């Protein structure tokens, strides 16, 4: 490692060659303010267009100020980060940015978590000179099933564009217009709905302002709760319990399952259930489907559709429907846990408590924005009545709890209702990248070999590497598994499958970096990847603490099959728990 010596604010430091001024300063404990820059270290994600010019510093010998985020240190560089010239420039540029930003912070959904608001406060901006003659760049508001775009608030940091294009390779949005009217959106300023957007929500997860936010369904949920004619059932996804606490100041990685259940009861939900139950169900269905296909494959059937692709992630489903419609028979036909839950709640459970499905409202709490869209898909409803009525994100739930003045941190813990609240450790790990396939392996191994597993932690399937592969010994048969998180990584695996170069038997894909724990509906990470890692650890901790850790041992699942479904992949199971996919390439409208 070649090192160089530099001086920042009169202090000497030795850094690795190629280090940026921003990183070198950070190493010395000097936090240079940045706005557009964002980096998720362990995920190899970095946004550094050098566009906001807030991080400018003085480098001796250079005529102009240099942006710290993209300027590499030279040997002997003398850098000053807070001279009057630098501070004046920073303030003036910040005034420019604010002069073209709405001032309705009081009612902005991002208020309190807005990077721009924080920066204005940090730089002590108390007035914006010339505001009275300053024109604002305004755009029409666009609402889609999951995401609201309010580009008046866009500051051209380009984080969303980087996520959508470089990380996800979705290409739904990019910079349009020039100069003052430049902003980021779909081609020809089309609605997001007609773009190839997968609603993964990673744009929302990184937006520093209120330009990109989720569609807020909490008021719909409240309306259902106060309606005496409705029985309101709530399900909550695994990743929510590992992140919700952050919204209330708890340390990242704090598990809040018990408090979450209590809070949901206090909010007035009639039944508090767990999506994890449906995750166990997914393993039964998808695992069985996989073993059926695998047997065909091993018997030489070329149409066995191996590798099987997981189908729990709605962003991923949207992605392959848009980009790989020719492969639409390859993913598992099993519905996602959210939809399996809705289907079972409005049939099996509605029958059990003796109500009509129309009088039941199913709400899901999800780390995800694509789930909103998924719940609105027409194939997931019966006579116009959706299996899942409303899907709200972790952030929306946190707001809901705050509005109800529930003291979340000090809530007592309680347990989910039965029967749809019982789950295993295998279901919990659905929240992490690699988790679905690990859960499937635990069950598939025992079903395939007829032997009991002697270990349950398949650490070779875990981690933050974008594309991972592992071979699991299925009692002599080497089962090849591929894992991708982030749609760009998924594309790499899919292209291999399409080209016939893949030797995988099963592939797990999650649209969001890190899996559901890094979902578009989670508390904002503000570019701190240690938060994602802490959530992942919490998920594995929950798994370890569960008395039952394989899906096919969940007694309520066994009961469900016994009482209602028969056996996995039965006709009834197919009817309720499986779906089919569409070629949606043509639905993308480039220009209307």
């Amino acid at each position, binding site marked *: 490692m070649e090192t160089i010596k530099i001086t920042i604010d009169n202090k000497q430091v030795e850094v690795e060659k190629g280090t940026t001024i921003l990183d070198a300063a950070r190493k010395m404990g000097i936090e240079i303010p940045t706005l557009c820059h964002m980096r998720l270290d362990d995920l190899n994600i970095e946004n550094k*267009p*050098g*566009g*906001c*010019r*807030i991080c*400018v510093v003085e480098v001796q010998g250079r005529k*102009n*100020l240099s*942006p710290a985020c*993209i*300027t*590499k240190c030279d040997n002997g560089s003398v850098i000053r980060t807070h001279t009057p*010239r630098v501070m*004046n*420039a920073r303030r*003036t*540029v910040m005034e*420019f*940015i604010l*002069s*073209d930003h709405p001032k309705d912070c009081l009612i902005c959904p991002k208020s309190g978590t807005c990077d721009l608001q924080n920066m204005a406060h940090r730089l002590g901006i108390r007035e914006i*000179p*010339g505001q009275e*003659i*300053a*024109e604002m760049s305004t755009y029409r508001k666009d609402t889609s099933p999951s995401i609201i775009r309010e580009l008046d608030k866009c*500051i*051209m940091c380009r984080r969303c564009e980087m996520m959508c294009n470089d990380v996800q390779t979705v290409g739904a949005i*990019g*910079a349009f*217009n*020039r*100069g*003052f*009217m*430049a902003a980021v959106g779909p081609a020809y300023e089309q609605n997001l709905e007609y773009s190839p957007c997968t609603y993964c929500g990673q744009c929302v997860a990184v937006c520093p302002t209120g330009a990109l936010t989720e569609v807020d369904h909490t008021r719909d949920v409240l309306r259902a709760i106060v309606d005496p004619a409705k029985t309101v059932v709530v399900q909550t996804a695994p990743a929510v319990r590992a992140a919700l606490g952050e919204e209330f100041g708890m340390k990242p990685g704090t598990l809040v399952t018990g408090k979450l259940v209590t809070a949901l009861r206090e909010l007035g939900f009639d039944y508090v259930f767990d999506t994890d139950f449906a995750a166990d169900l997914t393993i039964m269905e998808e695992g069985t489907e996989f073993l059926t296909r695998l047997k065909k494959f091993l018997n030489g059937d070329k149409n066995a559709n191996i590798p099987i692709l997981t189908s729990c992630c709605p962003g991923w489903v949207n992605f392959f429907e848009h980009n790989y419609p020719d492969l639409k028979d390859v993913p598992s036909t099993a519905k996602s846990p959210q939809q399996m839950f809705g289907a079972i709640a409005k049939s099996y459970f509605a029958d059990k408590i003796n109500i009509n499905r129309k009088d039941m409202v199913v709400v899901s709490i999800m780390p995800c924005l694509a789930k909103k869209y998924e719940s609105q898909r027409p194939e997931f409803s019966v006579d116009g009545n959706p299996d899942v009525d409303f899907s709200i994100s972790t952030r929306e739930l946190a707001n809901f709890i705050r509005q109800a003045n529930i003291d979340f941190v000090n809530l007592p813990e309680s347990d989910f209702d039965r029967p749809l609240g019982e789950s295993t450790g295998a279901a919990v790990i659905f929240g992490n990248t690699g988790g679905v396939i690990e859960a499937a392996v635990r069950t598939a191994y025992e079903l395939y070999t007829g032997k009991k597993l002697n270990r349950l932690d398949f650490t070779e399937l875990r981690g933050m590497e974008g594309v991972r592969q592992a071979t699991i010994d299925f009692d002599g048969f080497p089962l090849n598994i591929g894992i991708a998180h982030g749609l760009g990584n998924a594309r790499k695996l899919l292209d291999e499958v399409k080209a016939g170069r893949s030797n995988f038997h099963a592939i797990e894909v999650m649209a969001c970096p890190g899996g559901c724990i890094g979902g578009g509906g989670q508390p904002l990470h503000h570019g701190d990847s240690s938060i994602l890692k802490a959530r992942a650890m919490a998920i594995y901790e929950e798994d370890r603490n569960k008395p039952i850790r394989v899906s096919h041992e969940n007694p309520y699942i066994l009961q469900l099959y016994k009482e209602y479904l028969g056996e996995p992949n039965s006709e009834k199971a197919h009817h309720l728990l499986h779906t089919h996919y569409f070629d949606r390439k043509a639905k993308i409208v480039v220009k209307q």
Partner: protein
Amino acid sequence: MSKFRMHLLVCGGTGCRAAESSLILESLKRELEEKGLGNEVQVIMTGCFGFCEKGPVVKVMPDNTFYVQVKPEDAAVIVAEHVIKGRPVQRLLYVDPKSKEHVPDSKHMGFYRKQIRIALRNCGFINPENIDEYIAREGYAALGKCISELTPADVIDSIKKSGLRGRGGAGFPTGLKWEIASKNKADQKYVVCNADEGDPGAFMDRSVLEGDPHSILEAMAICGYAIGASKGLIYIRAEYPLAIQRLKIALGQAREYGLLGKNIFGSDFSFDIELRYGAGAFVCGEETALIHSMEGMRGEPTNKPPFPAESGFLGKPSNVNNVETFASVPVIISKGWEWFSSIGTEKSKGTKVFALAGKINNVGLIEVPMGTTLREIIFEIGGGIKNGKKFKAVQTGGPSGGCLTEKHLDTPIDFDNLVAAGSMMGSGGMIVMDEDDCMVSIAKFFLEFTVEESCGKCAPCRIGNKRLHELLTHITKGNGTMADLDRLKNMCNVIKDTSLCGLGQTSPNPVLSTLNNFMDEYVAHVTEKRCPAGSCRELMKYSIIVDKCVGCTACARGCPVNAISGERKGPHFIDQEKCIKCGACFEKCKFGAVLIN
């Protein structure tokens, strides 16, 4: 090749073509055919002569007779008198404004006397669509010399020693640029010609491409040989259809002659060129933005380093030079660097092409040695200010240059002197202003362009320039304060200091230079609510001098908003509330009774 006793050169530059010079070409051909002279006299459409003010231009060779403001119907008299009888047509000759005498040839015209044509050496001499004419004027000899006699290092050495600096604006030493690109090892390198000329009113590069396309192809091949590149790309704006057409013809001819393609001159050097079209964004003249545009990405600049010489087109080392820079290269090789470096000033060698425009008598394209003074350009070549008005300022360097004044007139123009004076060379736009021009409005005018052309990537340029423009508008409406002037200056300095690329780093120049040189005008706008040049409409007040008014009612009848009242044969009055300051009354009054202040 047939021989002709006489050549009639018709200017095919943009201005002359707009004035129907192609009809002149046709008429001349027709006349010659009718008189049976088709085999004796050849009519050619050439590139730009530069003297656009007096276009369309027709030159008769070898007599060197220079006809100006020719009309298609003049073809008959030119053929009958000059071609057949050898008598120049006096009435079509240029008239010297001072001596009032007819000037028979261009050498003796004030416009051409101080010019030295290096980049424009073939413009107005050859048919740009005929490679043989280029070759006849030593074309491709320099490429031949490079390949057969010089090593790539020799070529770079010659360019370095010649002192040639980039003509696109920043003036980076060309030889050094080539050297850096040559040292970066890669399996593929590119030579890129920046033909994205975007300054309003500038047409230097366009004229070279339209008038002498082969010189660019030759220079790019020389550059390819020097840096070890086998591919060239010309990034040209699609609004230059004629230049594109001529480049395509030139490329076809050069390939046919084996001057482009595989194993040029039988050597192992291969080089070919492709055209890439731009959509006319000014920022795409910035080399990183240009490269992104060629790659099919949004035309936005990225931070440098890395410079294109290290990582350019498709991530490969690329050498980007402007058209005019390339145009000088072949002559430097054939005539030697010593010759080139003998022209110009100590740090700026050779010549520079300027597009003269504004309130000047001789609008057009000129090429002068570095070190020529602004006075020589404006008053000798340019023929002084239009309508005998007083010179006030000259804007050099296009919309991001600065306004220079009387006190800079005797400064020898070169890269460094212009920067020192608060302006820049830019690509060579030169706009002259007279006493009627309000300098606040001028600054506003140039800023309007940069606001429009900012790509929007970085905040200071995207928003800051817009705010500058708004504040200038505020001031020209008489709403500004002295504090606004301080704010204006601070905004300018911060935009310059923090913007990502050259566009934002220079866009406040017109404001800063006018603030420096014409502070009194700004102060008059804000403190007295007065525009000294009388051009800011909101600050004007029209009134009628009672003593001079005869009551003819012409003003009242001409007023579009009925703001003027008065009895016939009695004095008239203007209602200031109603007046929209259109100036109609001033135009109508024959007695000088309408006063503007």
